[in-house]
């Protein structure tokens, strides 16, 4: 598998397209300059891609491109149905698009305040997945980092059509069979110290900050959770807690596309102090299923560094060797050797929400 030649950076002030230049990357194009881009879906082979905007005054908007980002046009925005007068809990109003995935011809959008939407026409129209939205457990979900809960991770099983997995902050991990018609909680083994002790093991209130899946071995899943790092080797039927060096707290996780025992994490001090440990940025990598970790530092700032890498701010390409990492203070780093060495690609981007290859 060749290394990727193109990548995308969604930021607080625009969408940046990256292209290979020599051994590094350069900004090849900027779209939506000055507008918040909460998520990007990289182009299909035919050039179709989506960008989710979160305009400060005028709401969430979705734009599509049919020429891999050269030109854009606005398409339909996922919209919640009319809220029944007796509906309690969060308002049925779209706050943000937090996840976009294209799986077998269907585009999925994970949103705040917790709705999953699907599109069968590349984003031209959207339908709320009512089977999840109408689950009574949703009333117990709550916001993690935002005022309302949201879906940030979406995976489909590569060989079992109709099986979907979504991560909710804070609402646990949900798996579906039958093409997203039936759902069940799949967060057994996670724990939540932010809850009263008697609720700590409640699967429905877990805060999985981000979930990553090994594409070639989808039973291998990794979760950077609010309370640490968890791994599943049985397709999310159960989760086991791991301990990483420096700190097990963080937001981002990336899973190797073909090696099920390899994953990357970016530690921060802890919940109430979201900065790098000792003001030095590191990436924790495991290659043995989480039994041990290496703290990778070469090329990353090792003093006076307060960059935080948010949940979609770390990505690995299909080769498993190229990585990108972007921080909420607008610094972007790249590695071409699985994280052993990092180069500063750009130090002055807007706050980075998401990095993606493709």
């Amino acid at each position: 598998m060749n290394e990727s030649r193109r990548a995308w950076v969604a930021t607080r002030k625009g969408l940046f397209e990256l292209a290979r230049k020599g051994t590094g990357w350069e900004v090849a194009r900027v779209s939506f300059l000055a507008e918040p881009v909460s998520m990007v879906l990289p182009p299909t082979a035919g050039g179709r891609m989506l960008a989710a905007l979160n305009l400060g005054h005028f709401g969430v908007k979705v734009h599509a491109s049919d020429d891999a980002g050269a030109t854009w046009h606005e398409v339909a925005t996922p919209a919640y149905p009319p809220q029944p007068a007796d509906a309690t809990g969060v308002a049925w109003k779209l706050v943000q698009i937090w996840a976009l995935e294209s799986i077998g011809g269907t585009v999925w959008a994970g949103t705040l305040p917790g709705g999953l939407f699907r599109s069968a026409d590349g984003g031209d129209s959207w339908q709320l997945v009512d089977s999840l939205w109408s689950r009574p457990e949703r009333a117990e979900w709550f916001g993690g980092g935002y005022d309302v809960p949201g879906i940030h991770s979406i995976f489909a099983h590569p060989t079992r059509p109709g099986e979907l997995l979504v991560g909710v902050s804070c609402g646990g991990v949900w798996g579906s069979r039958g093409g997203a018609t039936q759902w069940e909680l799949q967060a057994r083994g996670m724990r939540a110290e932010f809850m009263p002790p008697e609720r700590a093991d409640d699967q429905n209130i877990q805060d999985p900050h981000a979930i990553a899946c090994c594409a070639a071995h989808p039973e291998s899943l990794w979760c950077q959770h609010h309370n640490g790092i968890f791994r599943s080797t049985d397709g999310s039927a159960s989760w086991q807690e791991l301990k990483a060096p420096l700190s097990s707290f963080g937001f981002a996780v990336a899973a190797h596309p073909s090696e099920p025992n390899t994953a990357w994490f970016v530690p921060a001090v802890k919940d109430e102090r979201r900065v790098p440990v000792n003001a030095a940025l590191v990436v924790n990598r495991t290659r043995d299923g989480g039994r041990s970790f290496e703290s990778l530092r070469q090329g990353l700032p090792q003093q006076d560094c307060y960059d935080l890498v948010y949940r979609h701010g770390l990505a690995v390409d299909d080769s498993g060797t190229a990585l990108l990492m972007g921080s909420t203070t607008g610094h972007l780093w790249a590695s071409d050797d699985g994280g052993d060495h990092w180069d500063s690609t750009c130090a002055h981007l807007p706050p980075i929400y998401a990095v993606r290859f493709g």
Partner: protein
Amino acid sequence: MARIVFTQQLRRFTETPEVDAPVGRLREALQAAFDINPRLQGYVLDEQGHLRANVVVFIDGQRSQDRVALNDVLRADSQVHVLQALSGG
């Protein structure tokens, strides 16, 4: 006829017609503009039909009161300005 004017900031995203709307409620006046440009509605109202949290409407210099049903009354010569609220900036 009440006159409704949208902030120029919206022109970055979609067309903003200046509308002379029939006298009545604010919702009816906004609808007259949305009838000309349906895409404009999603920028001003959310999917429940409420005024977006960071959009503000002034009627004859006074901020509108009803952000949900949009039942503020317009006079025959009312000047309606639809603006971005600084809270959203």
